[in-house]
């Protein structure tokens, strides 16, 4: 039975993610304790904030072993959103140099060297162009979806084949990543109106 768990590790806006899953009819709960991960079928790591704080909170509150058991050992559907995508990297460089979860080999870097007309943060609605036909856009997207982005950093994977959708902002960067059961999006599906809710539906359809 589908049951979505959202990890509460003190990094912002769980309400919006919860409301979005509830809006598409999913059974969803915010998880306060790592032990509760065992009770869900789909796990979501949301997050707004800085990379270092995110890793510190995940680690101090004891989430990492249970997350690894769920996503790496049992290979159940996992979705990282925004900071939750970035934390999957090996290394983050926001306000310092931090080790990430390392599930997706790669680094999180700041937008740099862009044309001066392109401002940072990258804020607003932009496309996610599916990278292949098995992408998370496989259902419900006759044309590329437009999603809400708000970020200064992005994940650059060592292996570009894990990129699931591309976004253009001066450079081409990973709007979304999928590596088997591990999905992640840089944009905010919970704030991207109908396109965002469709990605969440596609996530629920994954098993």
């Amino acid at each position, binding site marked *: 039975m589908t049951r979505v768990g959202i990890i509460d590790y003190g990094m*912002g*806006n*769980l*309400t*919006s993610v919860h*409301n*979005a899953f509830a*809006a598409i009819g999913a059974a969803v709960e915010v998880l306060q304790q790592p032990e509760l991960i065992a009770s869900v079928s789909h796990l979501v790591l949301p997050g*707004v*904030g*800085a990379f270092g*704080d995110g890793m510190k909170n995940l680690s101090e509150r004891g989430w990492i072993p249970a997350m690894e058991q769920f996503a790496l050992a049992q290979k159940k559907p996992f979705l990282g959103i925004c*900071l939750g995508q970035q934390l999957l990297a090996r290394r983050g460089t*926001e*306000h310092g140099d931090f080790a990430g979860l390392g599930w997706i080999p790669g680094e999180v870097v700041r937008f740099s060297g862009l044309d*001066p007309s*392109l*401002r*940072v*943060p*990258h*804020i*607003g*609605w*932009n*496309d996610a162009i599916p990278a292949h036909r098995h992408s998370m856009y496989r259902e419900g997207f006759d044309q590329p979806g*437009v999603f*809400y982005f*708000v*970020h*200064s950093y992005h994940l650059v994977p060592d292996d570009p084949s894990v990129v699931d959708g591309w976004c*253009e*902002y001066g450079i081409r960067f990973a709007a979304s990543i999928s590596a088997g059961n591990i999905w992640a999006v840089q944009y*905010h599906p*919970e*704030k*991207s*109106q*109908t396109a*965002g*809710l469709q990605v969440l539906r596609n996530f629920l359809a994954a098993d």
Partner: protein
Amino acid sequence: MLRHRLIPILLLKNGLLVRSELFEIHQIIGNPLYEVQRFNEWNVDELIYLDMTREGDYDLRRDDHKTKGLADPLQILDEVSRTCFMPLAWGGRIRSVEDMRARISRGADKITLNTGAVEHPRLITDGATVFGSQAMVVSIDVRTHADGRREVFTHGGRTAPGLDPVAWALEAERHGAGELLLQSINRDGTGEGYDLDLIGAVAHAVKIPVIACSGVGRFEDYAKAIKAGASAAAAANIWHFKELTDRQGKRAMARAGIHVRQ
């Protein structure tokens, strides 16, 4: 390709929505929740909600507005988040990281600072460290004096701390602001169009996005702000007094050659 945003601003005072003129006259226009539901159905790009209630003011709601007991702005935010699947910036009376956390945990994506940032610019940095720069919007209220000199005002247009708008914009950016919301007190509620010189001066000085506000009277005004250098066009009053404000506004922007989400 990134679209330019068109953003409605809702102004909240003592638990009710108001329209504003010259930062002085605030006319009650209704319920703080219905408008959000309407904007969500319209699929708008983003929403900015500013609570202008002054410290110590009591609740002036009248029974005939049929609002729930929402004297507490955080309760209003809870209700707003339930129907809001679009980005939401929340501002007003935010003076600490704890104030920010209370709003972000209830569904706000961004925090808008004004007086708090001028009094303690460090607050921008502290917020950016915890929530990221992208969540820190610094709102700058500017009055243009009769001699053409521009000055930043705080406390809802009542206090002048002696700052030049461009210098303060650069300082806010340096302290970690991710975005600026630029308002003109002189143009507020006048419908005379944006202060394009002000927008150009600030937008060309900083590298972060600038949201232009104040003075929109016609849908054609939006594109002018973008061409003057703003990343997004915002307005308050026009959203309450014209029909199909989002679609018509977007169409006017597209006609002027601005890339928007339609």
